[in-house]
C-alpha cells in the first residue's frame, strides 16, 4: 500500500463516517425540524392531559402543525398548562378548541386543534380558552358501571 492510496482510503472512510453522522442527525433524528422551528407559542390548560408528553405533535385535521414544548401544573387551579409551538404558516382563530386525542386505541397521544369562526387570530403567547381533556377509559368504565348499578337499583 503506497502513501497516496492510504490517504485516499482514509479520506473515503472519514467522509463516509461523517456522512453517516449527518444522515443520523438529519434523516433519523429531527435536527432540522427542531432547530428551524419557526413558530409562535400558544398555551392551553386542561383538567387532565392523560398520557400527553413533551414533543407530542399538535395536529389540525390530521396535519401536524406544531409540537408540545412544555407541560406544567398550575399551582392555583390544579390544571395542566400545556405550551405548544405552532408553525407560523398556520393561523388559528381565537375560538379554536384544543382537545387531547389518541390515534387509535394504543396510539400516540396528541393535541387536536379545531378552528372556529372568529375573525381574530391567536397571537404569540395567547391562551386557548376552550379545551377538552383527555378521555380516561377507567373513568368512563366506572361511570358506566355506576350508571348501570343505579338504573338497576331503581327497577
Amino acid at each position, binding site marked *: *500500500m503506497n*502513501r497516496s492510496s*492510504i*490517504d485516499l*482510503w*482514509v479520506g*473515503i*472512510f*472519514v467522509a*463516509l*463516517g*461523517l456522512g*453517516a*453522522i449527518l*444522515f*443520523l*442527525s438529519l*434523516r*433519523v*433524528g*429531527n*435536527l432540522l*425540524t*427542531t432547530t428551524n422551528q419557526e413558530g409562535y407559542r400558544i398555551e392551553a390548560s386542561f383538567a387532565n392531559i392523560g398520557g400527553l408528553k413533551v*414533543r407530542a*405533535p399538535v395536529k389540525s385535521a390530521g396535519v401536524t402543525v406544531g409540537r408540545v414544548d412544555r407541560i406544567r401544573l398550575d399551582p392555583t387551579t390544579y390544571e395542566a398548562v400545556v405550551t405548544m409551538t405552532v408553525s407560523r404558516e398556520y393561523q388559528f382563530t381565537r375560538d379554536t378548541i384544543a382537545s387531547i386525542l389518541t390515534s*387509535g*386505541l*394504543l*396510539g400516540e397521544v396528541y393535541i387536536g386543534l379545531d378552528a372556529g369562526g372568529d375573525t381574530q387570530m391567536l397571537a404569540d403567547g395567547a391562551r386557548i380558552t376552550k379545551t377538552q381533556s383527555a378521555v380516561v377509559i377507567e373513568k368512563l368504565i366506572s361511570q358506566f358501571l355506576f350508571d348501570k348499578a343505579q338504573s338497576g337499583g331503581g327497577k
Partner: protein
Amino acid sequence: MPASAIADGLRRIGGGTRRAVARLGFAARFAVAVVLHSPEGLRRLRLTLREIYFAGVLSLVIILVSGLFVGMVLALQGYDVLQRYGASESLGVMVALSLLRELGPVVAGLLFASRAGSAITAEIGLMKATEQLSAMEMMAVDPLARVVAPRFWGGVISMPLLAALFSTLGVYGAYLVGVKLIGLDAGAFWGNMQAGVDFREDVVNGIIKSFVFGVIVSLIAVFEGYDAKPTAEGVSTATTRTVVGSSLTILAADFVLTVFMFRGVGA
C-alpha cells in the same frame, strides 16, 4: 497440616490480588503516558493516518455487512411483535432507537475489538517479542510516541465513525425489510422515526458512547500488546486478553453509561 494449607491458600489469594492491583496501576500509568506522548506522536500525522487505515478502513466490510443484517433482522422480529398490537408503523422508531442508543455503539465496539483491537495487540506484542521496541529505544526513538500513540488515536478516531456507519446501514436494512419487503408505508416509517428520535438525547449520546468504547478498546489493545510476554505464547495470550477484556469492559461501561444517559428519558 491444615493450618499451613490455609496459610498457603491465603498467600495465593494475596499474591493474585497484589499482582492484579499492580497491573491495574501499571495500566493507569501507561494510559497517562500514552496521552502525554500523544502530541509528539500526532505531530507525525502520517503514522496516525496509516493506523486509521488499518483499524478503520479495513474494518469497514465487517461493520457495514453486520449493520445491514442486524437492521434487517431487527425489522423482521420487531414487525412480528409490533403488528400483533397494531403498532407496525412504529417499526422505524423502534429500530432507530435500538441502533442509535445501544446496538450501534455496542456491537460495532465488539466487532472493532475483535477485528482491530486484536490486530493492534498482536502487532505491538510481536514488535516487543522481536525486540523492535528495544531497538527503537536504542536509536532514541520513543516507542510510546512512535508505535503506541498513533495506534491509540487511530482506534479512537475510527470507532465513532464505524458505529455511525453501523447504525446508518442498520436503519437502511430496516427500511429495506420494513418498506420494500413487508410493505409498510415509507412516510410513516420515516415520519415516526423523526418524531421519536431526538438529536441531543439519542444521536449525540450514541456518539458519546461509541467514543468512550473507542478509547476503551484502543487503550486495552495497546496496553496488552505493550505488556505482553515477549514469546509466541505471550503474544497469543495477550491477543485473547484484549478481545475478552475489551468486550467485557464495553458491556460494563455500556450499562453504566445507559444508567446515566437514559434514566430519566421515559419519565
